[in-house]
């Protein structure tokens, strides 16, 4: 029994039952499938998170964001500048307690290099309703190329707990035709 020492002192010499052996082989093969699936998706899939990231200070990231806002602001919504950067360009989004800055307006079917960083604590970039979730760290700038494929209004929900205002931290991204 499992709570007594093995009755067969030489238990490691016992042959393995066929049923078990077959299952081990199937499970192992399935592991290989799942392993290669990740590699395959890097080639064939369209959704892979970029590995491009840099160390950056909060000041420097704010500067770069402000430059973008100055050149491409199209209007204001409340306090938030709405920025419409040209397709293919570098786009910056600041996470800080407790908002995403600024509002972005992107064009459907175009790609943008989206830079994400936090000025204070960690935040979670959760783009809804498409459901893309990426962690945002202070001191690190993540650069990923995104290609919005449907027009509409998207929300950036913060999904990393960031203190008492966490549930108020919502940003916006417009995607136009």
């Amino acid at each position: 029994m499992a709570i007594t020492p093995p009755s067969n002192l030489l238990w490691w010499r016992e042959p393995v039952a066929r049923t078990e052996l077959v299952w081990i082989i199937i499970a192992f093969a399935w592991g290989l499938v799942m392993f290669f699936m990740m590699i395959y998706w890097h080639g064939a899939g369209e959704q892979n998170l970029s590995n491009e990231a840099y160390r950056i200070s909060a000041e420097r990231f704010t500067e770069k964001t402000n430059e973008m806002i100055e050149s491409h602001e199209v209007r204001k919504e409340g306090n938030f500048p709405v920025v419409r950067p040209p397709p293919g360009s570098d786009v910056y989004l600041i996470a800080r307690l407790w908002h995403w800055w600024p509002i972005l307006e992107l064009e459907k079917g175009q790609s943008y290099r989206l830079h994400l960083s936090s000025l204070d604590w960690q935040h979670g970039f959760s783009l809804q309703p498409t459901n893309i979730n990426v962690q945002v760290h202070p001191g690190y700038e993540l650069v990923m190329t995104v290609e919005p494929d449907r027009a509409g209004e998207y929300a950036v929900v913060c999904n990393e707990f960031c203190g008492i205002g966490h549930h108020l931290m919502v940003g916006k991204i417009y995607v136009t035709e």
Partner: protein
Amino acid sequence: MAEAFRTCPTTGLKVHLPAENLIKANAVAAVVFLAIGGFFGLLVALTRWPAVHLLPADWFYLALTAHGLDVLLVWIIFFEMAVLYFASAVLLNCRLATPRVAWAGFVLMLAGAIIVNVAVLQGQSTVMFTSYVPMKAAPHFYLGMLLFAVGALLGCFVFFGTLVVAREERTYRGSIPLVTFGALTAAIIAVFTIASGAIILIPTFLWSLGIIQHIDTMVYKTVWWAMGHSSQQINVAAHVAVWYAIAAMVLGAKPISEKVSRLAFLFYILFLQLASAHHMLVEPGVSSEWKIFNTSYAMYLAVLGSMIHGMTVPGSIEAAQRRRGLTNGIFEWLRKAPWGNPAFSGMFMSLVMFGFIGGISGVVMGTEQINLIMHNTLYVPGHFHGTVVAGTTLAFMAITYLVIPLIFRRELVMPRVAKWQPYVFGLGVAGISLFMMGAGTLGVARRHWDITFAGAMLPYDYPGAAFLMMGLNGLSAVLATIGGIMYVVVVVGSVFFGRRVEGPVELGPPAPRGVAGGSDLPAAEVVGQYGSAGTLKIPGTVALVGVFFVCFVLYYFVNWKYLSEIWPLR
């Protein structure tokens, strides 16, 4: 010396009284913290139920921090200490090495747990159990965690010491039992876990005191999860050992093959790898090669370990039942299993739900790219309520129903309540797991007070289905809480007011006539010679495993499909 032992009338094992007292103390502490943590869990779930929205925001985040700490850390690890002492001193017929050190460990753990709870309740440490920097808790929050960890480490050393003593004093013949081997796996992983915890929590403690200026967020997270994830591997090793133990005690089940089951445990140690990896899949600047290698634990070999246990545990039960004459069709052994015995029913539900809910979702979510659609959504707590609640907690609850008569030597009070408890709790937990996973698939964030975003400067509405999921989650939470209360009531009632057990106890159905076996420990030898190749026919298990595999494969590819529907990313 002699009076330090008693002989167990049920198993004939010599029980070292200091070991027995330590098992009792750790189990009681565990249950107390489960009750506290479970209470916070209910408050959290009721707050996340949009129609109820019970707590104000600050209390919600505080309660969530306390819930995570009290159940994940304190309840589980105290209970694991009891499992370690049981699997070493009791199963090996041996004295516990240095009970004094074990008591010191217990006191440290208790002090640590109390300090952490006080810190959280004081309100300056609402940082969640992960306490990601640069969010800062009060210094005694980290100090409490460290004390708790040191106490657990002492417990592990006492366990190792007991194995050495047993070997030197020749208290058993041959190799250690499989259950002890599983516990050994857990203890080895625990040492690695606690070392990682110390590496990250000591600097963080110093940082909270102002002695260290800066802690890098990525470094923190990587090392923190080397602790945080490995500790989940401890839980798996421990609850799998508990599955084997219950199957053996209730049905006299013998592992189909000692070799295979032990190898599967060994996989847990060997392929633990940098288990932090799957918590780092959407962090900035982590290379894909590192992620793929580590999430697949070098080709999913740790998962393979669990998949092996997933067959050998039910397989050994089926083999034992068939030996008892339940051979009709492919499922008579299962239909006529002791479903009224909470130790068995809890164990079997733990096995099924751990595999189907926790296991499958974990592997899917830990796939490099698929993590993009799940990270930090409610899918994550959905998944781990499938592993650590439906799996570990339910398994620990189940074995409690054997520990009470054998170690506390009390009869269960309210046996009818005990009989229904695993079902009520199991159903509730299945609900919270699945509905949180459902809400997560719809994008709902975890650790979030208000999914209506009332008061936010910019609005957003989650789909209506998400609100439905959160309501169903709340209902399931109430059910799980009732199951939890039933457990606590039966345990506390039995320990304090249960009738004393004098003679041997009946742990499972008696061995059928004509089949060799002890009447004391049911069917002790019934399947004594089971397990050699060729004699084994377990068609029912093969069918169950087949269903599991099909679900796994389908669900895995469905999620790739979901992934392919989000914005293209490079």
